[in-house]
């Protein structure tokens, strides 16, 4: 029995994962190489830079911005970003008056094709419950202080909708290229727990 077992008769999740994979592979239900492919894809290829490119394009291309807000899945797909958890994308725009932030209260749904897999804090029960109850306080604790006049809208991800925040373009960036702008855009800004700052 492993010293890491949580209960006398229940091996750790690591061991149970290994057991499950070995059984599924033996039965021909999954191939280890296919699993390797998924892991590589999400560790190496898919990440917040995809979302950052979407945001930067929306900042420099007004037609694209309108398409993005009108049909998130379609406009994001124009850049080649699609796949599991990228269906039903809804893009909401931050303004001087409204700040938007995303949560998944039930299970940590997240728009993988544009942001990669979610960070630890997004999956945390405290984030999932408090962002609904006291978003302004929690945003403050996470380093984002909003003026009292700004309305905070919290979007709860669901099977029907995955949200991406279109952050405000920071002032003083009119000289920057689309590529340079994309480098400024952070994952946190696209979840809505931070703003994008000029370099």
């Amino acid at each position, binding site marked *: 029995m492993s010293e890491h077992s949580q209960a006398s008769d229940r091996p750790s999740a690591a061991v149970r994962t*290994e057991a499950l994979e070995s059984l599924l592979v033996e039965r021909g239900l999954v191939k280890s190489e296919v699993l390797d492919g*998924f892991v590589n894809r999400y560790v190496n290829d898919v990440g917040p830079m995809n979302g950052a490119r979407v945001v930067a394009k929306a900042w420099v291309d007004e037609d694209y911005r309108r398409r993005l807000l009108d049909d998130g899945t379609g406009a994001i797909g124009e850049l080649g970003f699609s796949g599991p958890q990228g269906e039903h994308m809804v893009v909401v725009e931050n303004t001087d008056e409204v700040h938007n932030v995303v949560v998944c209260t039930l299970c940590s749904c997240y728009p993988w094709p544009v942001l990669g897999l979610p960070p630890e804090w997004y999956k945390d029960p405290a984030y999932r419950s408090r962002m609904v109850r006291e978003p302004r306080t929690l945003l403050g604790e996470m380093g984002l202080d909003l003026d009292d006049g700004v309305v905070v809208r919290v979007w709860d991800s669901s099977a029907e909708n995955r949200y991406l925040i279109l952050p405000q373009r920071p002032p003083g960036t009119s000289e920057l290229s689309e590529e340079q702008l994309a480098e400024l855009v952070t994952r946190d800004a696209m979840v809505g727990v931070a703003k994008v700052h000029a370099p």
Partner: protein
Amino acid sequence: MMPAISLDVDGPAAPPRLNGELVFDAPWQSRSFAMAMALVEEGHFTWDQFRDHLIATIDSWESASEGVQYRYYERWQEALESIVTNRRILTNPEIHERAIAYAARPAGHDHGHDGHDHGHDGHDHGHSGRHRH
């Protein structure tokens, strides 16, 4: 009491990554994640069906586990076992039996995949799940 939200993924201790974040804390988490993806892709169940199991396991954990550290991918693995057995792809006893056998291997054989191992680079070299016993 709600635990404090950890922002360590962005802290100076966070390992550098191509896409700016560590997506898996341990190799087994990536295997569990990928198994769900592969089974969905193969049509054994849909993502929404898996999500229902994930929601249920998270919900039951949260109502029963006050004060215990929440570990997302442990719930993910539990949901995966739940849907796999529920849909009669595998049975609970066979998963349990295999896991018990693996857990009983001599020390050092399971590479200490307890969710605390660091230093892996996110690539899938030499982790659990591809050993043959």
